[in-house]
């Protein structure tokens, strides 16, 4: 749905995004990066608010800048927190529904639908000026889903939502993704993104550091061995048994003496060998975990490298 080829955008002498190449298809994709990494610039390029300085960006095969054909199939929830404050939530969403090309009746029906989807039915009649951050966020989400778009871009969508709202919203995104929609979620809160998707675009200082599935990206980072924690009552015996495996780089006992932490290369080979090494030796294992097999670690490794 979105194709970027060598896309760069400069603001005078400051670079916004630099030489971005990527493809985004159906499902949820996370756009990750620290503040100032270029996430909003990339979203503005995709939503056609900006033109690339160099390179080519296509959305549904079309150039997005000021292109109504693209907007017909795209919904956008911006990061900004601005509205027509004297409108109530329903009026605001209904006005944008009219701009989406719906007639008055259809706009009213669809407005009620999306407002219900974001859980704002009871509060949609109040002035936006009196809304809390979370309510504003819900209204922004509602307007992005109005015309049932194939592509939805969400810039920091979970800001201000309470835990229940976040859960509901993530479920909603999951449903949409299951229906074949492409959803691009920009965020710097890794924990939340991780709960939504494993597919990511990682931006750092305007450059695309990594793109694709989290697990694959993690496995490709050779410089940083994977950490594996084994919970057992006999950590020293486990160490003795594991020491012979070739992929182990280091071992560490924890202070409580009930686990051992390993650094390994090629984790899949390690797991294959694990059966023979300890499980067949009657060593009681309470659990396995991989502390760095998460987004935060991947992000940290990539950015630091």
């Amino acid at each position, binding site marked *: 749905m979105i194709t970027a080829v060598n896309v760069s955008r400069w603001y005078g002498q400051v670079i916004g995004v630099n030489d971005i190449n990527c493809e985004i298809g159906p499902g949820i994709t996370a756009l990750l990066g620290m503040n100032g990494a270029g996430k909003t610039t990339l979203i503005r390029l995709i939503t056609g608010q900006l033109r690339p300085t160099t390179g080519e960006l296509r959305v549904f095969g079309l150039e997005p800048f000021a292109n109504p054909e693209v907007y017909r199939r795209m919904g956008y929830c911006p990061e900004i927190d601005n509205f027509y*404050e004297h409108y109530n939530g329903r009026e605001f969403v209904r006005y944008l529904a009219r701009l989406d090309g719906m007639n008055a009746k259809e706009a009213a029906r669809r407005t009620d639908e999306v407002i219900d989807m974001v859980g704002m039915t009871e509060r949609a009649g109040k*002035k936006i*000026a*009196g809304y809390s951050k979370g309510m504003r966020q819900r209204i922004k989400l509602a307007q992005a889903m109005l015309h049932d778009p194939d592509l939805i871009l969400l810039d920091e969508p979970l800001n201000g939502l309470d835990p229940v709202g976040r859960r509901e919203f993530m479920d909603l995104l999951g449903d949409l993704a299951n229906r074949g929609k492409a959803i691009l979620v920009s965020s710097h809160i890794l924990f939340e993104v991780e709960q939504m998707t494993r597919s990511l675009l990682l931006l750092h200082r305007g450059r695309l550091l990594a793109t694709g599935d989290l697990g694959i990206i993690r496995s490709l980072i050779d410089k940083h061995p994977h950490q594996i924690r084994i919970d057992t009552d006999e950590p020293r015996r486990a160490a003795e048994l594991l020491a012979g495996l070739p992929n182990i780089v280091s071992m560490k006992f924890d202070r409580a003496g009930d686990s051992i932490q390993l650094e390994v290369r090629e984790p899949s080979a390690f797991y294959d060998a694990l059966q023979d090494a300890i499980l067949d030796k009657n060593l009681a294992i309470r659990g396995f975990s991989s502390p760095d097999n998460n987004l935060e670690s991947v992000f940290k490794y990539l950015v630091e490298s």
Partner: protein
Amino acid sequence: MASPIADLTYRNYDGPLEPPINRWWAIAKLSMKLSMKKKGFWVWASFSTFWYAILLIIFYVNETLVTSAGPVGQKASIFNTISWKDQFLNAFNESQLFLFILALLMGAGTIANDNRAKALLVYLSKPCTKLDYVIGKWLGIFVPMTLVTAAPTVIFYFYCLMSYRSYGFWSQDPWLILKLCGMILLPGICYSSISLAISSMFQQGRLAGGVFAGLYFITYFITAAMNGAYVSITMNNNEAPSIVKNLFYCSVDGIQNAMAKILLHTNGSTQIPIPGQGGQAKFQVPEPSTLVFVPAFFLICGLSVLIAWSQIRAVEVVR
């Protein structure tokens, strides 16, 4: 015994806790800095001095070409009949539009933008009262505005004092400098008060600016219309009714003109000093009543500040 390893953990400030003073000055400084960073401030401030520049050229030409051309030239010199204080009055009146634009730049958004950004919540959550805030914002407009008015006036005064004493600059009014000191405060007082009041009523600087501009220009047209009426009636050798004379001063521009005339104690004279008729005041609307316009001026300014003060709330009220 103290540990050989230094304690590098964060320590809170444990010095003496003095109550903060002059909090309004911090707000004023911030406002002034913001204003002076704008290129427009310097452009319009420069434009506001244009009448002094024109006067300098006229005086220079008159001095070097006319007065020095023997007895005939001396007779035709504008310096024979010039009213010096009226030159300051004219320059003051001519600068009004530019000073208004400066006020628009500095004042329209001064509280409105804070309202929109909800910065008042931040200001008033500090040990800073509404009064500190209002005084700070008021001074933030008043000080730059007064400096812009004062600089060319004082420079022009001392230039004339050094160059044209022989033409009566000093003898006409030895107290002129004191009167000018009063006059240069007028735009600062007037514009900072009015713009503060208008700005406090809006959430957007642009809307506040629109209303301020509307107030200025519409009342300006009343002044202009009354000026036209006064001149046309006087040209027919009739006495203009007092409503014309009083309405002439009923504008943002006009009331400052009234105060300046009262301070300088003059009816004014032609804008370009005319040889032989430098003090001609036939078509100038005469000095207004001190008893009416001085209290009116301070009442308007005071009420404006009061409006601003009453509009400022730390808590956003949604109606």
